[in-house]
């Protein structure tokens, strides 16, 4: 059973990461920095619980705020560039964050062992859950409670005027400006909100794996983050969840029996999916169809 709880934890954390990219993608910005924001959240949260002995919840909150602050700082210069330039700029930023943690040492003695991040070695012994007697099941529940909250918030936002404004910016920046939308405010807020969610996902990730290192937060994770909402489609938050379950559950876990070939298949399936469904698995057409089906039932 623990295997499935573990899988549910992975899916939960990746869903959060995917939602953080979804938030930013709504405004038409493709950000490859989400893994970097997650890294900030992971290190900050872990340092707070391990080094400062803080409770997990405030630590997560602070981690999210730290990541959001960093995201704001990226958001401003990134505003000057758009489209593919932004992809590259955020990619480079994500890498810069990763390299920062690759070179980041901050250890203190705790009892007879030294704990804290140690450069390329990473940050070991993030033992908040075992020390406080959380079972895998409880950890999974916590993760999904957070996922549910974030999803509910985003789903609600999508239906509010804010959601429409974000999408308007994503559709046509010039026209959005011409109807009085403040581009800077909208794009930076979206970046910050995305950063907050990514920071949360990083903070939780650090605690359930107990060991993080810079290599966890590389380009591959950043790619996953934007792959979920793009594969799932931007019509609804549920597309992202479906994509995460599909990729993490079906492709990565379900195909474990294929051994090495599984990784090959992953890239190939992305290519195939984009050729067959360029607007995502859950595109507006299929969404409308689903609504009709549900409406009839």
């Amino acid at each position, binding site marked *: 059973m623990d295997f499935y709880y573990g899988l549910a934890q992975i899916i939960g954390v990746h869903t959060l990461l995917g939602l953080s990219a979804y938030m930013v993608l709504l405004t038409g910005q493709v950000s490859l920095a989400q893994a970097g924001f997650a890294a900030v959240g992971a290190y900050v949260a872990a340092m707070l619980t391990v080094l400062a002995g803080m409770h997990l919840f405030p630590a997560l909150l602070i981690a999210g705020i730290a990541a959001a602050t960093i995201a704001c700082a990226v958001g401003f210069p990134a505003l000057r560039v758009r489209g593919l330039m932004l*992809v590259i700029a955020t990619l*480079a930023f994500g*890498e810069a964050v990763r390299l920062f943690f690759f*070179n980041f040492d901050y250890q203190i003695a705790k009892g007879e062992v030294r704990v804290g991040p140690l450069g*390329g070695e990473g940050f070991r012994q993030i033992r908040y859950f075992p020390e406080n007697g959380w079972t895998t099941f409880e950890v999974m529940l916590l993760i999904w409670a957070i996922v549910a909250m974030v999803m509910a918030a985003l789903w609600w936002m999508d239906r509010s005027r804010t959601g429409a404004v974000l999408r308007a910016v994503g559709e046509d920046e010039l026209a959005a400006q011409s109807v009085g939308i403040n581009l800077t405010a909208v794009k930076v807020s979206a970046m910050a909100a995305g950063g907050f969610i990514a920071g949360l996902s990083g903070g939780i990730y650090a605690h359930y794996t107990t060991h993080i290192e810079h290599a966890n937060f590389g380009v591959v994770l950043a790619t996953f983050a934007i792959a979920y909402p793009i*594969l799932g489609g931007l019509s609804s938050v549920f597309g992202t969840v479906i994509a995460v379950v599909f990729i993490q559950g079906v492709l990565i876990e379900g195909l474990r029996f294929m051994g090495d070939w599984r990784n090959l298949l992953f890239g190939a399936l992305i290519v195939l999916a984009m*050729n067959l469904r360029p607007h995502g698995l859950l595109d507006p057409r299929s969404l409308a169809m689903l609504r009709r089906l549900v409406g009839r039932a």
Partner: protein
Amino acid sequence: MIDLAQSIVDGVLFGTTYAVIGIGFTLIFGVMHKINMSFAAASIAGAYSGLLVFLLWKTAPPIVVFATSAALAGLIGYAIYLLCFRFIPIASPLATLMSTVGMLLLVDEIIVHLTAGMPLSYPAIYDGYPIELGQLILRVDLLLVFLVCLVAMAVLLYLLYRTRLGIATRAVAQQPVAAQLCGIRLTQVNAITFVMTGTLGGIAGAMIGASVGVLSPLLSLPLTVKGLIVTVIGGLGSIPGAIVAGLLVGAFENVFQMWRGVTERDMYVMLLLFAFLVFRPGGLFRIAGARD
């Protein structure tokens, strides 16, 4: 002081490979207004495929390996065009971006799979003594890498500016609709661009392999990031920009490698990129006519 000069020289020489990779990114962007994220990985894959020669001809001289790398990389470029660009609607830029990222992962995995993840040794371009210029030591292999890349770039520029094919390519880059109305077949020009940049990438991949001495799938991600940085610093779509930026980044990273060590150097390259984004977002060579 001499150390600084030495690292700048080495960096500039190696920087030509970045320049060539940057040209590949920039050229595809110029023609299709899309980024091919898998380009650097495909270049490394091209270099790998050059090693296939050894299966047929055990004692093949390096030059044959390099030529095979370039040719097969051209083929890989065409395959990528078919798989990631040809059938995805122009109006879905996200889909193309995503599929080339998928392709990047796929290419890497194929290499890992076929080589069992072990680095393979790659023939050196020259293994004699270095040239000494006073206190400055010139690595002849790097010098040859520099020359090969220069020649490759010169040939590309000749093709682009002096042949009918090249003019068609540039016409498509500037006015796709008008170019089609003049009877230029868009898909054909796009395909040729991919073969051309693929070949160029193969040469860069081969030269990287030749100067490092080994090929490893671990090369492709950093090369992707470096290539993209070069493209941005040079100005998206600008070939001279990519050349200058490639040399600049090569020198810059080598100097910081000397000062701050190999683990930190790339962080400074990112800072350089950010400086450009903030102070000169159009890159070194802003493309004229992009005023809207």
